[in-house]
């Protein structure tokens, strides 16, 4: 009887270990398969000709994705310019000013905003933002600025929830100390609280960047997908994610491999951003 219980306990433990290892296995598979499809072309065409190549004509042997790398960063920075101040001020309001009832209403609303699918953002962007830009600023409307605007809103929930956590975790004694010196609430916030929550806030911006650079469906609907580096904020552009999504369905042979090479570059950028962001969050906790 006791033997059976012991046996069962051991069995359960090993099953759970296997389950826990599945995440690592999946991560490993994703790496192996994207790399094994994406790397051969780097070898064949040359790293320089892909990463710094300007011409993307995969059926003619040109696999340059430099304009897309630049475009991806441009929309991401644009999204951050719009999303970072909005998100941070929202987080400050939530952590420092809002009452308990307000919080009960605002936090779920933000979570719901995070749940709206990216195709819906893309669709509304095409219907409302693109014509607005076309009519008031010029160009076709499918542009860097339209994409940045929509992405800026899409990354808000990420920025708000992570910088909120960073602000809330600042010890209460700091606030009390500052108030005791006669500082107003705002002086306390920008001289004491924001500096001590700095690494968490930066991490929220970087994770927001990660979301923006990885976003696909909204971007291909709004960006216009032109194959060159945009000369102004009103020019269309194509991002790394857009390149994959637009052509994967029909690509064959080297063309398909080229899309996986695009994926490899995207994966490396995302890994670096996530690593830096996690470093920021961990440091905050360690303090």
């Amino acid at each position, binding site marked *: 009887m006791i033997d059976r219980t012991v046996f069962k306990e051991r069995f359960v433990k090993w099953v759970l270990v296997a389950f826990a290892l*599945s995440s690592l296995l999946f991560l490993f598979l*994703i790496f192996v398969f994207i790399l094994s499809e994406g790397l051969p072309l780097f070898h064949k065409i040359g790293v320089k000709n892909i990463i710094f190549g300007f011409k993307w004509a995969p059926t003619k042997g040109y696999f340059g994705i430099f304009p897309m790398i630049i475009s991806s960063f441009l929309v991401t920075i644009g999204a951050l310019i719009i999303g970072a101040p909005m998100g941070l001020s929202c987080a400050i*309001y939530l952590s420092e000013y809002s009452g308990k009832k307000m919080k009960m209403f605002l936090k779920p609303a933000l*979570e719901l*905003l995070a*749940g709206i699918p990216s195709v819906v953002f893309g669709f509304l962007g095409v219907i409302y933002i693109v014509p607005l830009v076309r009519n008031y600023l010029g160009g076709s409307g499918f542009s860097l600025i339209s994409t940045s605007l929509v992405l800026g809103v899409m990354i808000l929930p990420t920025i708000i929830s992570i910088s909120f956590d960073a602000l809330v975790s600042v010890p209460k004694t700091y606030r009390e100390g500052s108030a005791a010196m006669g500082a107003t*609430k705002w002086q306390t916030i920008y001289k004491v609280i924001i500096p001590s929550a700095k690494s968490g806030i930066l991490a929220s911006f970087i994770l927001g960047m990660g979301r923006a650079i990885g976003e696909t469906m909204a971007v291909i609907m709004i960006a216009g997908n032109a194959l060159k580096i945009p000369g102004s904020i009103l020019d269309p552009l194509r991002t790394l994610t857009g390149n994959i999504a637009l052509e994967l369905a029909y690509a064959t042979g080297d063309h398909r491999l080229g899309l996986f090479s695009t994926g490899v570059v995207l994966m490396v950028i995302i890994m670096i951003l996530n690593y830096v962001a996690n470093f920021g969050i961990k440091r905050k906790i360690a303090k």
Partner: protein
Amino acid sequence: MRINPRIINRLVRMGLNVQAFFTVGILIIIVAIIFFKGFPHMSFAFIFSFPEDMGREGGIFPSIVGTIQLALLSILFATPLGLGTAIFLTEYTRESLFTKLIRFGVESLAGIPSILYGLFGFIFFVIKLKMGWSLLAGVLTMTIMILPTIIRTSEEAIRAVPRQLRIVSYSLSASKWETIKKVVLPAAMPGILTGIMLSIGRAVGETAAIIFTMGSSLRLPLSVMDSGRTMAVHFYILAREGISMEKAYGTAVVLVLSILLINILAYYIMNKAIARYS
């Protein structure tokens, strides 16, 4: 000139107030547009009839069925895996190199954008494992995508279960697994359910990873090897290819409404759970 700090304080407070409401306003505007524009095109017949002429006419019944199949099957695979991982991380080990490694894996999976899941699912399930564009390929890709959410929420829920409950169970000579099964899991159930609901919401709204694994066939998927399209994919194709704006709005209402309801239910369950232990 020096402005009184109290006045600055007031102004900042007002500004932040406006900003917070503006952000919520965006959500309200998005939902309002979708509802006002879409409701006239949504009807009983729209939900329960088949699309005709690429979706120009008729309803969205197959895509609703496809969405439900995808979400439920992904949950069926991901819940045991995710919950098992969470139980292992919380109950069976101390923090060690091994748990750090697993956490690294989970965090990395959570950070991968959906288009890369699409690439992976396409090359691995669709091409290498020869599943073709199929419900199964979509489900397996989605399972990996939602795994991190389920692990994190379950882990938090299990950690929140008070230690006393476990001690009492051990004192009644229950084994570790019996304690987990009969005491810990029932107590953590609301939190675990929240994770499951959030994952369903994610599966319903996902497009990039699904379109390259499950495909976009308009037929009703009758076996797991059939291709199909979810509501999100159907909506994307209708809007992107300009097939029919009315049908696109109609689909958007059903899509957004179901995601909102699922997520609201998720947070409702979570709040109940928080109220229980605080």
